[in-house]
């Protein structure tokens, strides 16, 4: 039993938390800005490499460079909006979706030019797993879960209690009415991109520190993140968290049933099933 938990459940929860951080961004963009953001995985990759850059240039430890990378990625996300997506706002949303695919490729290429295509790592130290009554947890895994918990709790509290958090929910719920109430659309959009960028960086960083840094990692993880967002209910932050954990666990457990090369197909199967059977997702989100 402990073996089972250590080999499948813990890795599933850790990767699930990483997916959750990415899925929250995807679901916020879907809910508030109303398009599928296909540059999201590469935004996460970029954030992860920016953290690496800060580590090597300034010499901060990886975990200390993360906040810097989150801020940089938040600014980057908003910059991309200003430079590209904003000009498509009045056009059909599919144009923004296609544009985001292109932005994703562009980000990936920039990362490849700057850091090369070979896998990299934040540090060389091998952290031994510690035993907690038989549960084997590595420090980086504990840190990943703690970070996810802290970010999710902060975000939920912000959305629930703060004036601008409520404005974001109102915009997601009923944009016309929100505007009638005097909510400034531009300000909500800016805020959304800052939050989404910061969370994407956290997601990419955790992915990189728990495995290795590759320029394709965000792109590869994005399908799972989208599946998590849809599974949880589009527009629902708490749904994205639950969705992320379910997808992460399902992927880890799938190797018990099918050969491990099919692991990445698990998210796809779940995505299809949820779209067919319960398109509003677990938490009654928007139907796509």
């Amino acid at each position, binding site marked *: 039993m402990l073996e089972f938990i250590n080999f499948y459940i813990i890795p599933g929860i850790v990767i699930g938390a990483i997916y959750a951080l990415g899925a929250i961004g995807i679901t916020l963009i879907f809910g508030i800005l109303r398009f599928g953001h296909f540059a999201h995985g590469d935004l996460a990759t970029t954030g992860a490499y920016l953290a690496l850059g800060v580590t090597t240039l300034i010499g901060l430890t990886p975990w200390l460079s993360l906040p810097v990378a989150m801020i940089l990625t938040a600014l980057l996300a908003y910059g991309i909006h200003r430079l590209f997506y904003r000009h498509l706002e009045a056009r059909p949303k599919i144009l923004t979706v296609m544009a985001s695919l292109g932005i994703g490729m562009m980000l990936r290429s920039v990362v490849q030019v700057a850091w090369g295509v070979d896998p990299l790592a934040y540090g060389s130290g091998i952290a031994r797993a510690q035993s907690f009554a038989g549960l084997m947890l590595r420090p980086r895994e504990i840190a990943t879960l703690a970070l996810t918990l802290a970010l999710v709790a902060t975000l939920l509290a912000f959305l629930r209690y703060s*004036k601008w958090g*409520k*404005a974001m*929910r*109102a915009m*997601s*719920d*009923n944009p*016309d*009415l*929100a*505007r*009638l*109430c*005097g*909510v400034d659309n531009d300000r909500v959009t800016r805020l959304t991109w800052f939050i989404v960028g910061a969370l994407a960086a956290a997601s990419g960083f955790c992915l990189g520190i728990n495995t290795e840094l590759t320029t394709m990692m965000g792109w590869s993880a994005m399908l799972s993140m989208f599946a998590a967002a849809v599974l949880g209910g589009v527009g629902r932050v708490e749904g994205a968290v639950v969705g992320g954990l379910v997808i992460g666990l399902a992927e880890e457990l799938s190797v018990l049933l099918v050969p491990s090369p099919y692991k990445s197909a698990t998210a796809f199967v779940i995505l299809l099933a949820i779209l067919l059977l319960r398109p509003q997702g677990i938490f009654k989100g928007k139907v796509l």
Partner: protein
Amino acid sequence: MTHTPSLDRPQPILIMHQVRGGYGDADILQGVSLTVMPQEIVVIVGPNGAGKSTAMKAVFGLVRIRSGAIVFEGEDITGWSPDRIVRRGISYVPQVDNVFREMTVHENLEMGAFLAKGDLSAAYDRIYALFPDLKTKRHALAGDLSGGQRQMVAMGRALMLDPKLLLLDEPTAGLSPKYMEQIFQICRDVRDSGVSILLVEQHAKQALAFCDRGYVLATGANRFEGSGRAILEDPEIAQMFLGG
């Protein structure tokens, strides 16, 4: 336009003067004129597609106005943005999708006061006194309420900033007669508290019977105006617009 207040005749709170305009190139409104006096309930009735909602949106700055003027308390507000109009003292409840479904009743009211600064407890007390039903449901999601209660949330939201003029687009659409009576009664209470109301109504007969004055709108222009009773008793209007 200048309006000099005189002692014998109170100044209208709202004047729509020969307003033409619409959403795109075609004018939906072909010269709509109406006035609302202080503490008056004015109803607009007319067939579907007559431009009733459009006329109301024009007051609230949601329609491109090509010619004509909208004057509120003696000030020309033609072409103002909705949030500036809200601040000036007009609130608007749209015909459909007029609540935040995923937000609680209390949060809906809070959004109504988004532009306000400072302590809002007096405003909440005022709204919950007007809508006692909402007080017990304050933590329920607006989307889970009945149609009538949702309409109350929408009206409460619009009243949070203590407007001088309230625009209601078909507040009783789809409601049972019991709720319709309740909404009309609330309108009277709101009026008696000093707010003027301009409303569009599908239930023309009931609305004309309870309002102070009415307008009949058809194909983007006013056809008749007068006291509710006068409109109701006019056989021609009754035949043409009120279904006999």
